[in-house]
């Protein structure tokens, strides 16, 4: 059995988890076994509908609604053992990063994080993963009996079919050593790693007061917002928007870079984007070498026009 762990974000299953679900179902097919999902906590949607992604069963452990890496890892590992799972799939998300390594130790199961493709099972179990901050890929063999893979967001397309999953809900408890003192939400932020389109801007925007046009462009595209490191360092934009080698690594379908020179450390975090558009007034900006489409021009003139053209066309 292939067990897929689904992140439960305040009762909702996120897109990256649905990708993991489809991925896990495809791995199960490859291995000639079935795929089952595990979700911890209460969920607001109908879990049986997850059958459309190719899982036969959804195990729900109810009653536990505060994430705790230690407690959750035990629940996941126990479910894997109980179901005799040969593969456990996570999304390489915030909670996946906290959980998968712990489950790996509990099950003594080799873990590959940041997977970008289905495993090659022709000779063992070899997983392709992103390394060197997106500048290369490594093919990593898992040698243990149980395998754990955590899938990069946006690396595998969730496929919808027909089907309904059996939902088995059982009560669970954990004891946590971590007390959650408070939670604060960042306003209006679309999760960057999940965004299919990202609009990003750099020092070329001159100052934080000029971000209005960037936000408008992002709005018409329903895009996430990102920035270069100096922009976050100068506190023009919040840290969580900083993309690159030392910030967030992303792989959207479309990355629009405005007034960003394209330094190697910046490219490292964004070069897995499927399509890159660069808008820069300097024709020699290194970013053009990594771009698919480009406009050489002043962002202050080009961006409002681009926003208007997109609005007109939609």
């Amino acid at each position, binding site marked *: 059995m292939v067990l897929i762990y689904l992140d439960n974000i305040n009762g909702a299953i996120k897109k990256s988890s649905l990708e993991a679900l489809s991925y896990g179902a495809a791995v199960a097919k490859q291995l000639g076994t079935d795929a089952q999902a595990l979700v911890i906590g209460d969920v607001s949607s109908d879990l049986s509908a997850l059958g459309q992604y190719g899982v036969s069963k959804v195990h729900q452990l109810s009653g536990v609604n505060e994430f705790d890496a230690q407690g959750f890892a035990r629940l996941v590992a126990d479910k894997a053992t109980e179901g005799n799972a040969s593969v456990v799939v996570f999304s390489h998300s915030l909670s996946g990063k906290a959980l998968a390594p712990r489950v790996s130790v509990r099950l003594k199961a080799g873990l590959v994080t940041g997977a970008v493709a289905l495993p090659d099972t022709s000779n063992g179990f070899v997983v392709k993963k*992103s390394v060197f901050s997106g500048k290369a890929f490594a093919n990593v063999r*898992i040698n243990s009996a149980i395998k754990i893979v955590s899938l990069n967001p946006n690396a595998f397309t969730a496929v919808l079919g027909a089907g309904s999953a059996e939902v088995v809900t059982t009560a669970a408890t954990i004891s946590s050593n971590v007390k959650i003192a408070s939670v604060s939400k960042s306003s209006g932020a679309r999760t960057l790693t999940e965004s299919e389109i990202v609009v990003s801007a750099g020092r070329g925007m001159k100052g934080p007061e000029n971000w209005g046009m960037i936000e408008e462009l992002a709005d018409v595209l329903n895009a996430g917002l990102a920035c270069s490191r100096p922009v976050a360092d100068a506190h023009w934009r919040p840290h969580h928007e900083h993309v690159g080698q030392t910030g967030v690594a992303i792989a959207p379908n479309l990355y629009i870079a405005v007034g960003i020179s394209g330094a190697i*450390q910046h490219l490292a975090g964004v070069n897995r984007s499927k399509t890159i558009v660069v808008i820069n007034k300097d024709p020699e900006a290194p970013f053009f070498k990594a771009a698919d489409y480009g406009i050489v021009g002043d962002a202050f003139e080009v961006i409002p026009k681009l926003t208007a053209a997109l609005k007109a066309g939609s």
Partner: protein
Amino acid sequence: MKILVCISKTPDTTAKIAFTDNNTKFDTNGVQWIINPYDEWYALVRAIELKEADASNSIHLISVGGSDAEPILRKALALGGDEAIRVNIDIDDSYTIATQIAEVAKSGGYDLILTGKETIDHNGSTLGGMVAELLNLPYISLATKLDMNGSIAHVTREIDGGQELDEVATPVVISAQKGMAEARIPNMRGIMAARTKPLSVVEPVACDALTSTVSFEMPPAKAGVKLVDAENVAELVRLLKEEAKVV
């Protein structure tokens, strides 16, 4: 309080990424090595700040690697570590590395074990969680802030769409990312002092590697940029719709 900071040696951020031996090995030719930025800028610097606030805190550094990891440990000592430990095994299986660190930590009596959120070469994000599980300790991942109040750590970590403030009694394992501290450069006094700070080498414990790297690949090269005139943004919109099919 005793703090253990995990230090990884990584290629400089501008290093040329290439592979040798039929794409099975990273080409180290001409590569400059640095302390993994997440380990240095965030985990180590925050540990140093905690020591500056309370001189009774001590900072131990650990790196699992060959003798070529020693210059990196010396640099971390120059920044402000008190002593360093190198576990003498060069391997890229994170389970083996975590096992070595956990082994040293078991007898070290550490209150805080800090790592960077990931290394910039393997991009694993695995070490902290594995060490925590091996030691049966709580783990706060992707932390952006860390303050101590007696033996209670107040840690802010990134969650989907926001931040969470956690309170946890030591010992605890924490992985650090941007926000935790600001990068520093070592000064001359630190560099001189580092030369005589203790750096011990311990032999690894036996451990079966759970993973092994088979080969590397480079991403396919881009076809080259298509430039659109600044006066004709509608053409860009058309290309994005009809050719790239992304909007």
